[in-house]
């Protein structure tokens, strides 16, 4: 059994393990749209491997990190951009 710990995604607490990427944790928190595009579209991750930059979010105050390239750590605080569809932050 993997050890679970708490992180916060857009103020919502959830339990994850250390084998979960931050991108997946954001999805699990019910966030479909990670950011708002230049013309206002809702966007989620595309490539999953640190190329496309669509999954970027703020982790522990550091903006624009590729969430698919980071593992969850206890106490992490993740913030995504506000999105007009209401399925984002």
């Amino acid at each position, binding site marked *: 059994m993997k050890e679970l710990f708490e992180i916060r995604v857009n103020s919502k607490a959830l339990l994850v393990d250390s084998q979960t990427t931050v991108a997946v944790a954001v999805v699990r928190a019910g966030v479909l749209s990670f950011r708002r595009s230049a013309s206002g579209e809702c966007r989620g991750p595309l*490539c999953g491997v640190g190329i496309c*930059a669509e999954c970027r979010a703020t982790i522990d105050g550091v903006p624009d990190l590729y969430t698919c390239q980071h593992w969850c750590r206890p106490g992490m605080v993740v913030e995504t951009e506000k999105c007009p569809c209401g399925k984002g932050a």
Partner: protein
Amino acid sequence: MSAPLQHRTGMPYSASPARVVVVGAGPAGMQAAWAAASSGTKVTLIDANPSPGGQIWRGEQSVSSAGARLIEKIRRSNIRFLPGCQVVDAPQPGTLLCSVNGEPEWISYDSLVIATGARERFLPFPGWTLPNVYGAGGLQAMARGGLDLRGKRVVVCGSGPLLLSAAAALRAHGAEIPLIAEQAPFAHLLRFAWAFRHLPARVLDAIGLGKRLFGAGYRSGCYPVRAQGVDRVQSVTLRNSTQEWSVRCDYLACSFGLAPNLELPLLLGCRIDAGFAAVNEWQETSVPGVYCAGEVTGIGGADQALAEGEIAGLAASHAKTAPELRERATPRFQERERCRRFASAMAVCFALRPELRSIAMPETIVCRCEDIRMDQIAGHKSWREAQLQTRLGAGHCQGRVCGAAVGFLLGWPAEPITPPLFRVTENFMACAGAAAGVTPDPASNPSKQ
């Protein structure tokens, strides 16, 4: 700003001396590092990711035994492995400026092996920017990272052997796969299977002829034309020679073959031939002392990458004229030749059909970072011209997604590249800039929040 840097590394250009530096810890890079190190050479192996293996072997629970063995050999060797390391610039010959988990680090080399691999090629079509539209390998990577796909309907579409391996992995993670849509015509797949009928069945299964594995789910000769959904993808419309139809889905996983990661060869001025890094028989590029191995020289899969990696690693760590070197490399030359024949037949089989150039509508976004539409770039003559006029490829991903797309859509070749190769913070620039001559690109400063 420069004080912590001096403290960290002392004199920048002698900070991390290593005779052979290998960029990329996938099959090619690991094999190159191993070959060079086993010849007694000091080797540094760097990779952007937190662990070795490359896209093919990293993080998968059931890594192939060859992959697991090689990773273990590297771990036990005296090779210096530097994870979380992105090449940012090459400020002078023989030196790379890297970002190691956000901190600048200079790495010097006598010989360099570039094994940066390839990424999925995405083609724009209406709806491809909807949330839950992923790359096929991308969704697989998300599943490895813990995404729960149990009971989710995933349509897999695009082209190439990756579709089947991704579909199999997604199924293993609990996804329901109602359709795998391969754009290549059935006749191509048959011709390919006949040409290589002597190969073990598992090989043909793996490259697209595993129809029986997927029952009616695998269809050739069809491709996506649009994805629909309100706040996420809910269905995809596909087309073949006779009809269009829609399939309901929770996720759409698409990829149209692989495109080489050419940023570093381009930065170093290596000659590019037909979209790949050009190399001689020793995998050496047009720049002396700089070698390329693996997908960056041609899409050929892990076996080809291993053969090329070994040749590059041997050559990078030896005087080329040594007869014992040729003797050691000869079996790998033969293996490489066999792989290249297979790879070129595969390239013909899975060649993208011209109809895919017209699935992007004039209003379809091509550059996702800057939201540049097809009609904004179609009138331009080159990547550079379109970039200057529209900011195409000037956003966060720096053209890594749209570059491969327009390469196919408009036939624009890769162009010389300007550093930084990887977007770094202003603080990084301040630390590294003075010593290395890197200047922030004013066109790519983040302006929107």
